[in-house]
């Protein structure tokens, strides 16, 4: 049923329909509404889950780790500094192969303190072994949770997932969202079937010590499983499309790319603005298209290469910066196009909530046309002095 809902509430609603058995989270702006709503659902007995209140994000994800190892479907949500505090546990969840699903309402990282949106938080955990899915709008943000559980819990994957959506821009925006009914959700997402679990009657330990002659093999196995998700996500996303009409079989999504000369590459809510900007540029005769990344980890190198093979230049918009290098997405796109003659220009944009409008997208395209890239877009010179 289509309802006008705040992004956070829509996500909470979808998570509830995924039937999590244990939820542990710590409130942090702009994620708070999600866990508030879930706490209310638990208190009202609307969902059959244990809600563990904790004193920090480190404890929140640790509780999820333990509950997942004990065989429960678990959920958490966080952002920014909260995710930074979970750093160690994130690597442990992946290493212990626990299919935790966590929402990230993307927010900038301090210092300086910023509660506003960019994607530095989740991008900074790109090497942790978690799947990273990015939503363009609230409909996608909710749907990706079902997909995340489905893929994470697949016994050939067994890795945790971040479902990322831009803080405030999506989390606090009211949009029409079609929420699945419980029956629909159940038809897509079966009950959690743990691959192995903690059981006092049949004891097992997770994430044990690995000396130098074993450690590399464990890392290799995680890498292999993550790469396997490149084929499991399209299958699970396609199945979602068949059932509910919204197809997520693409790791990437092309918008007006068929005859595009300049391709923009981006992830998250900025893609909506880009699509409108492209329509205007197209009306003015500019052949511009968008390649939207829905999946950042595992990185769909092959799909990106294929989608960009016919363009004459590529402009990558990064809401993050790998300080001292480039934007994380630009680095990956350059890697995907290595060996081709297509120039890739990276633009660091919209950090810490800096607004991006259609005219900014048009300016980025002009910069790429002029061969100017690898820069911070929209710096205020008067502030820099």
């Amino acid at each position, binding site marked *: 049923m289509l309802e006008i809902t705040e992004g956070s509430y829509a996500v909470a609603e979808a998570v509830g329909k995924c039937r999590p058995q244990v939820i542990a989270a710590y409130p942090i702006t702009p994620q708070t509404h999600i866990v508030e709503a879930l706490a209310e659902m638990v208190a009202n007995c609307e969902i059959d889950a244990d809600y563990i209140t904790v004193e920090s994000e480190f404890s929140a994800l640790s509780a999820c780790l333990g509950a997942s190892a004990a065989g429960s479907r678990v959920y958490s949500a966080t952002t920014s500094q909260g995710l930074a505090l979970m750093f160690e546990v994130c690597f442990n969840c992946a290493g212990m192969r626990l299919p935790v699903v966590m929402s990230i309402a993307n927010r900038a990282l301090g210092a300086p303190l910023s509660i506003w949106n960019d994607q530095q938080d989740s991008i900074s955990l790109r090497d942790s072994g978690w799947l990273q899915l990015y939503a363009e709008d609230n409909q996608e943000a909710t749907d990706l949770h079902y997909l995340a559980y489905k893929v994470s819990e697949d016994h050939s994957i067994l890795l945790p997932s971040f479902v990322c959506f831009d803080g405030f821009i999506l989390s606090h925006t009211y949009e029409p969202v079609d929420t699945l009914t419980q029956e629909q959700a159940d038809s897509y997402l079966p009950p959690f079937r743990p691959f192995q679990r903690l059981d006092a009657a049949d*004891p097992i*330990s*997770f994430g044990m*010590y690995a000396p130098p002659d074993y450690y590399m093999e464990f890392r290799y196995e995680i890498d292999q499983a993550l790469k396997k998700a490149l084929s499991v996500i399209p299958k699970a996303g396609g199945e979602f499309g068949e059932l509910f009409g919204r197809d997520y079989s693409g790791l990437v999504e092309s918008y007006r790319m068929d005859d595009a000369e300049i391709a923009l590459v981006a992830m998250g809510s900025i893609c909506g603005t880009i699509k409108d900007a492209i329509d205007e540029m197209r009306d003015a005769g500019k052949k511009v298209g968008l390649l939207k990344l829905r999946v950042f980890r595992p990185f769909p190198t092959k799909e990106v290469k294929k989608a960009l093979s016919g363009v004459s230049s590529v402009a990558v918009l990064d809401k993050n910066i790998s300080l001292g290098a480039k934007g994380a997405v630009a680095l990956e796109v350059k890697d995907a196009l290595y060996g081709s003659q297509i120039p890739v220009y990276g633009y660091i944009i919209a950090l810490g909530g800096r607004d991006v409008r259609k005219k900014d997208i048009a300016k980025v395209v002009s910069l790429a046309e002029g061969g100017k890239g690898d820069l911070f877009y929209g710096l205020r010179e008067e502030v820099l002095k």
Partner: protein
Amino acid sequence: MAIGTGCSARPGMSRNNKTGSWRVFRPEFINEKCTSCGMCRIVCPEGCISENEEGLPVPDYDYCKGCGLCAEECPSEAIEIKKEEK
């Protein structure tokens, strides 16, 4: 040994890892001075000291890391720490 998904392991796997090889100092038990108080067994962090029929301590050098706690705590100074010779 094949590796378990998520580096999972059944109980008792640490028995295969004979940490005694890490030892630099080795506790030597002087039975003549021993009063069989059992302190060394209690304080051993590895739990690798047992007791024989006469009540005397028997170390398991497969797992003794040579921390020296037993010698430090022994009220009768019946344990001497010597440099391990390999």
